[in-house]
């Protein structure tokens, strides 16, 4: 199996799907000659031509709206938002419209579009190149929201997203792009949207997480082993729909849940996960459900010591593990 980066996995997924299915095309800012600011679509213009690789004007609301119109009329657009921090203008077309296409037409239309965006911090990106945006999409029925952590997952999930008949928001943590490498099979595969994945089995504490934090949690979990705390790490992979069965399953096993996410804590994905656990696994709980999410400041500051204050790292996770273990 080849070892590739998350960025390469994403590029491969798109390239293969564009080769397989004529209806798939991509649109966004700088995705053509430039190949995308992160080079996710490097080489696409020359392979697929200007009609299927569309450099758009700087106008995010219409990137979403035009993609939606194309999706409703039979194509399968992959629209790229250059950074997730610029995704807000798409909310009207995605949360307001795309999510309701199928329901509001009684199934006569559907919207098979993918909205991709690099998100997350720890890259000295400051307030406006570091935000996490999954919570604003994950609230709305009709949408799917995917947050991969590894090359294998990214490729398999993005292929599923492109083939999905409903709108999928695909949020790639930009810090994983080049940092995280992993094996990816040569042969064709997909990973189902909506299924979580146990990245490390364990007995004493369940950590539920996704995206970049999976790697920090794994690091903390392996550290904990050396202190005889056995931690299970569940990677949600998809934050809408949540894999409730796997979430409840791991907590029933360990009796202790720690939810780790980089986004602001209040009303983030971890809130829903905690609410589900406290409703459906109440009788199995041996301790309070603990969330370790981003602090109560609007976004991640620029200066290195300030950014470090915001980011959750293996050290902070280890502290939480120990506290929970001792409860």
């Amino acid at each position, binding site marked *: 199996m080849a070892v590739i980066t998350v960025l390469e996995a994403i590029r491969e997924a798109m390239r293969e799907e564009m080769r397989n299915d004529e209806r798939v095309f991509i649109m966004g800012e700088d995705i053509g000659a430039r190949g995308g600011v992160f080079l996710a679509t490097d080489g696409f213009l020359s392979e697929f031509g200007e009609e299927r690789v569309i450099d758009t*004007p700087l106008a995010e609301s*219409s990137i979403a709206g035009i993609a939606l119109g194309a999706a409703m009329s039979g194509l399968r657009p992959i629209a790229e938002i250059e950074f997730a921090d610029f995704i807000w203008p798409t909310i009207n077309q995605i949360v307001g419209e795309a999510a309701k296409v199928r329901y509001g037409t009684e199934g006569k239309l559907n919207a098979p579009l993918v909205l991709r965006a690099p998100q997350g911090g720890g890259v000295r990106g400051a307030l406006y190149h570091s935000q996490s945006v999954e919570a604003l999409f994950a609230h709305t029925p009709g949408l799917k929201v995917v947050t991969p952590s590894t090359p294998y997952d990214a490729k398999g999930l993005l292929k599923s997203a492109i083939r999905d008949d409903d709108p999928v928001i695909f949020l790639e943590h930009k810090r994983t792009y080049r940092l995280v490498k992993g094996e990816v099979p040569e042969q064709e595969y997909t990973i189902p949207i909506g299924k979580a994945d146990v990245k490390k089995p364990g007995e004493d504490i369940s950590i539920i997480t996704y995206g970049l934090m999976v790697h920090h949690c794994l690091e903390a979990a392996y550290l904990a082993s050396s202190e005889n705390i056995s931690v299970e790490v569940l990677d949600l992979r998809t934050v809408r729909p949540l894999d409730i069965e796997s979430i409840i399953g791991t907590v029933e096993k360990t009796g202790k849940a720690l939810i780790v996410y980089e986004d602001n804590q209040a009303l983030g994905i971890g809130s829903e996960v905690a609410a589900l656990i406290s409703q459906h696994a109440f009788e199995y709980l041996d301790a309070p459900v603990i969330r370790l999410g981003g602090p109560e400041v609007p976004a991640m500051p620029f200066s290195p010591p300030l950014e470090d204050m915001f980011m959750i790292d293996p050290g902070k996770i280890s502290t939480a593990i120990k506290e929970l273990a001792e409860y």
Partner: protein
Amino acid sequence: MNTNLKINDALLLQMYKEMVLCRTLDERIWMLNRQGKAAIMASSQGHEAGQIGSVAALRKGYDQCYIYYRDLAVLLTLGLTPAEIIKGFIAKKGEPLSGARQFPTHGAHPTYGVINLSNVIATHIPQAVGAALTAKIMKEDRVIVAYFGDGASSAGDCHEAMNFAAIHKLPVIFFCENNGYAISVPLSKQMAVDNVAARAEGYGMPGIEIDGCDIAAVYETTIEAVARARAGLGPTLIEANVERYLPHTSDDDDSIYRSSQEIEEAKKRDPLKLLREQLLERKIMNLKEDTYIHEDAKDIVNKATEEAENAPYPETVDFFKHVYAE
């Protein structure tokens, strides 16, 4: 103008029948609202020539219309029956656009190529451009028409959509039904210029202002724009100056912000009256035929009302269906 694009007598008469039917249906729905039966109604009275004249320039069932709530005549002319439409207003089972999940006239009817996805104004303009992009990519000579009001032209989505369509020379027509008001806000508070068509040049496409009460002008202008679009020459912005005779919707009270005098003045250019006079004058129709057309329309609308009123409400078992693919 190419003369064979000109309207002919048979088509004029056909359009008149459609207009009479639409007006009759519109009045009936307004009445149903006043009787507490229909939930909410945005009347098309005064807009009909713009709607019927432009639809007549399309290949029905092939071209696509992204409409808004005031486009009753578009729906009717494309093929929805009055009973289907009334079912929408009284939220009955069998409503074909959304199964009565949405506000009246909202949803989609793929067979007729008509989409009215939401109540959020102007969102459908980029969507229409997206459909035009599909036509271009798939190399189909389909034309898409986005219908919208003067109010919608202020929204960012309208700007972004027009700009994109002009860059890519997409087969889309931006058809603005300018009735001078966005609910209560008059044109002078919506823009510092006199017309929406003035914007077209700044995008690099033709902008044509026409009398939207003159159905022949509407038809002929749209025919030209359709030809441009099909030939791959790109979008056109047509601004049809129309009138709104009733309050914004049945929930509105326009007496607070609009004088009855202004409305009386506007009624002088009632598209129905103008077309009727033309047909009689040019002897395309006589008075007896006119009476028959009106009676026929009333009859159709009566039967449709009965059918719709007798229909049951949708079943609640389907409530959770169509959130995701099943």
